C-alpha cells in the first residue's frame, strides 16, 4: 500500500471540491499542495474560458472556411463533368458528320463489303469509340 495514501485521498477530494467551485479549508497535511491546486484552478480550471465573442468569431470563420473549401470542391467536380460532356458531344458530332457525308454519296454501308474507303469509316468509328471509352476508364480510375 502507498505510504502516502492518506494524503493522496485528501488531495484528490480537495481538488474535486475546488473544481466544483467550492472554497474549502484544506486539511493541514496538504496545505502546500492545496496552494498549487488553487493556482492551477486559476490557470486552467473551469472558469478559464475563451471570450464568448471570440468563440463566435472563430466559429463563423470555420463556417466560412468550410463553405469555401466545399464550394471549390463542387465547382471542380462540375467543371470536370462539363468537360466530359463536351468531349462526348464533340465525338458524337464528328461521327454524325461522317455518317451524313458518306450517306449523301450513297455508299454508306458499302464499306462492309470491303472497299478501302468504307472500311476506313468503320475504323474511324471504332477509334473514336475506343478514345471515348479510354477517357471514361481513365477518369473513373482517377476518382
Amino acid at each position: 500500500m502507498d505510504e502516502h495514501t492518506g494524503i493522496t485521498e485528501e488531495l484528490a477530494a480537495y481538488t474535486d471540491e475546488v473544481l466544483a467551485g467550492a472554497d474549502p479549508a484544506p486539511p493541514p497535511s496538504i496545505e502546500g499542495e492545496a496552494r498549487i491546486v488553487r493556482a492551477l484552478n486559476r490557470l486552467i480550471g473551469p472558469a478559464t474560458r475563451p471570450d464568448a465573442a471570440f468563440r463566435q468569431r472563430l466559429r463563423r470563420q470555420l463556417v466560412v472556411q468550410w463553405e469555401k473549401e466545399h464550394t471549390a470542391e463542387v465547382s471542380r467536380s462540375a467543371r470536370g463533368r462539363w468537360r466530359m460532356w463536351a468531349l462526348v458531344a464533340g465525338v458524337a458530332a464528328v461521327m454524325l458528320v461522317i455518317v451524313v457525308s458518306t450517306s449523301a454519296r450513297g455508299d454508306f454501308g458499302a464499306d462492309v463489303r470491303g472497299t478501302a474507303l468504307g472500311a476506313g469509316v468503320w475504323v474511324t468509328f471504332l477509334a473514336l469509340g475506343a478514345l471515348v471509352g479510354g477517357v471514361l476508364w481513365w477518369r473513373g480510375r482517377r476518382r
Partner: protein
Amino acid sequence: MSTDEALARRAQQGDREAFLALYDRYVDRVYRRICSRVPPQYAEDVTQEVFLAVFRSLQHFEHHARFSTWLYTIVNRQIADFYRRRTRHSDPTAISLTEVESELLVMPEAHERNDERALLQGIFAALPEHYQEIILMRFADGLTFNEIAGARGQSLEAVKSLYRRAIQAIRDAIGD
C-alpha cells in the same frame, strides 16, 4: 450523444454540423490546454491556429486513435510552433535551447515580476509529460479521477497517486 469519432467520421464525409459540434465540444478544453503553456494574451491566437489546423488536416485523422489524442497532438504542435516563432523573433541564437528554457526566455516576467501564472507555466512545461497530462485531464478537460482512470486504463488509486506526485513535483519546483 454521438462519440467524437462518429462526429469526426461524419465531418470527413462533408457534414459541417458534425465538425461544428466537435468545435463546440472542444474549444474550451483546447483553450485551457493552451493557457497552461502560453501567455494569456496569445491564447486566443493559438486556439484559432489549432482549429484551422484541425480543419485543414481532418481528412488525415485515422480512426485507430481517439479523436482527443489526435486533437491534443495538434495543440502541442501549435504551442511548439508559437514558441519557435517567438524564439526566432527574440533571439535567433536561442534556437538550440530546450523548449522549457526557450519558454522562460520569452517569458522573462516569470522571473522579473514573479508572476504566479508565468512561473506556474514555466514549471508546468518542465514537468514530465505524464505529470502534465494528468493535470490537464483533471483541470483543463474537466474529467473526474474515475474518468481519467478509464481513459488511461489504470486503477483509480494509481491515477490519484500519479496526480499527487505531479502536484508535489510542482510544489518542489516552486520551492514551497
